[in-house]
């Protein structure tokens, strides 16, 4: 099982349509989410802006490529749901939100080790934000 973290805390996953790899063929009955690896070629992103859900993998919390992939997707005009999945720690929640992610998907072990209050402490991600300030 996994836990979905948003600004309001922990919740169960409400995404019903599943996920497929970016190169896989789409199902007809349900708008599947797209799974992106952290080493995705950024040139791929241009074709994904109409997706309903994109999930970017964080194989390790030290792999910061997902933050740039999210930023790029939003700059390309992607308006759908954007999720960071994998080894993302509570301390990175603000970075994820500021990069354009809506939510973070973590496994039960991580959720037990870093419970909800540790994530909620970073739900103030809109405050103290130099980059937003510089962009006016």
């Amino acid at each position: 099982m996994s836990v979905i973290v948003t600004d309001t805390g922990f919740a169960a996953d409400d995404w019903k349509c599943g996920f497929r790899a970016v190169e896989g063929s789409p199902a007809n009955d349900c708008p599947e989410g797209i799974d992106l690896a952290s080493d995705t070629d950024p040139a791929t992103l241009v074709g994904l802006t109409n997706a309903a859900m994109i999930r970017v993998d964080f194989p390790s919390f030290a792999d910061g490529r997902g933050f740039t992939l999210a930023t790029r997707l939003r700059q390309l005009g992607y308006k759908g749901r954007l999720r960071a999945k994998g080894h993302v720690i509570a301390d990175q929640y603000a970075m994820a939100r500021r990069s354009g992610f809506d939510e973070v998907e973590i496994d039960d072990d991580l959720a037990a080790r870093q419970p909800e209050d540790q994530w909620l402490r970073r739900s103030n991600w809109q405050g103290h934000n130099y980059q937003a300030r510089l962009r006016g």
Partner: protein
Amino acid sequence: MYTYNDFDEAFVLERVAQFRGQVERRIDGSLTEDEFKPLRLMNGLYLQLHAYMLRVAIPYGTLNSGQMRQLAFIADKWDKGYGHFTTRQNIQYNWPKLNDVPDMLEALADVGMHAIQTSGNTIRNVTADHFAGAAADEIADPRPIAELLRQWSTDHPEFQFLPRKFKIAVTGSPNDRAVTKAHDIGLRMVRNDAGEAGFEVVVGGGLGRTPMIGKVIRDFLPQEDLLAYCEAIVSVYNLLGRRDNKYKARIKITVHENGLETIREKVEARFAQIRDGFTGFDQQLLAQIEQHFAEPSYKSAKTDGYEAARLANPAFRSWTDTNLTAHKNDDYAIVSISIKKHGHTPGDASSDQMRAIADIAETFGHNEIRISHEQNVILPHVHKADLNLVYQALRKADLATANIGLVSDIIACPGMDYCALATARSIPIAQEIATRFEELKMEHEVGPLKIKISGCINACGHHHVGHIGILGLDRAGVENYQITLGGDGSEDATIGERAGPGFSADEIVPAIERLIKGYVAIRQDDEETFLQAYRRLGPAPFKDILYPEKAEKNAA
């Protein structure tokens, strides 16, 4: 000087609170050691050979007397009464306890300072010309730009987990005192033909185990595009930089492996996407920042006393010959305070010395202090009429060593005395060289010479750009010192060439002595510096001096 506004102040306090929480969460197991490591590093906290080390940023090397006193207070309260000034305009405390660090950070925040991004795979403390705002040769003051970059890079959500560390330096003078070409991004402030302000942007420079001189990626970048363009460079690097091998992860390798043209195309494409996100508000902020860096209100006084004191006191005269640099105001001078007393640890200052510097700066220096990448302290604005009093006060604090730019003004990394990465000692070698040349009384005769010592191939002592570089290695458990020759960190940046086989710890100081005496014997005249002689004659005669036995064999 920049002073924190409410936003900056709230930010650093929030950051301290976050770090306090991270320390607690490490102890209660919420964070694993692996997870805690980059979090403590991005707050300046290293784990060294014997203890933790806290690296505090001195943004673009500028601080005031109150801040210097706070650094002294921190040294006394939580460390062993001293601090170490580094080659990246930071100060390091070598003996803090983990539980004290949040309090140390709070004490820094109280005076508008921090340790944010002084380590880790992040954009590091932005460095600048230590003579900024004072130098006679300056086109523009780089500090407002450096402060804007500090704000932009601080806690940047995209760039806290880069492939590797990322260093930016900026200079506003054609004489590059910030070693910009040895940085991941080097910025040189220039004006185009229309007279508009902008930058020459250099990318992919660096020292370390693969030294490279940076390459020009943009001849002229308009000032208002700076943040978007830097963001484009780091964003491209974040995806393209190698994560499979930390020794190949710096952008210099990314540029080398992909080619400058490819990098330029990707950066320009990325820049086109990012640029519209900046509305120009950053330029309004820049204008506000610039007001903080207004020139001091210079005083007018006669300077006759200065000349008289020079004539009367040879020691003062000698100090003024070496430790002063031309100020843009003729009645003023830039004072370099040597933190390289012969036989002492380069860059180490006691809390008493820090307080003495703070007092002198307050009384005679318009309250301004700088830290240079050469590990010295600068008083950027001193009226010539006050120089004698400044000198007397420095003497009392044991800070009047007259050796700036000479043999004993050595850059040395902490080496095996402190550092977990080091393969050899650096500090004792620097001490022995300085002491030896003090005995010989010949450093003034030798003239300008930059010796730089690193205790491992990571090159924190910048040995690649030393006129004489010394690299300490471990050869089967024995320290071995290689010499490089002809390096230069200025606007003519050059990587030094390896002279030949290394020397043992016992042989290295005599080898350096032989080298320098040999140079004095073959130079054209007293005016020809070591670097000029090396460039004129090439490496051969210098190698013959270093390896006389081999030279004899070749001659036979």
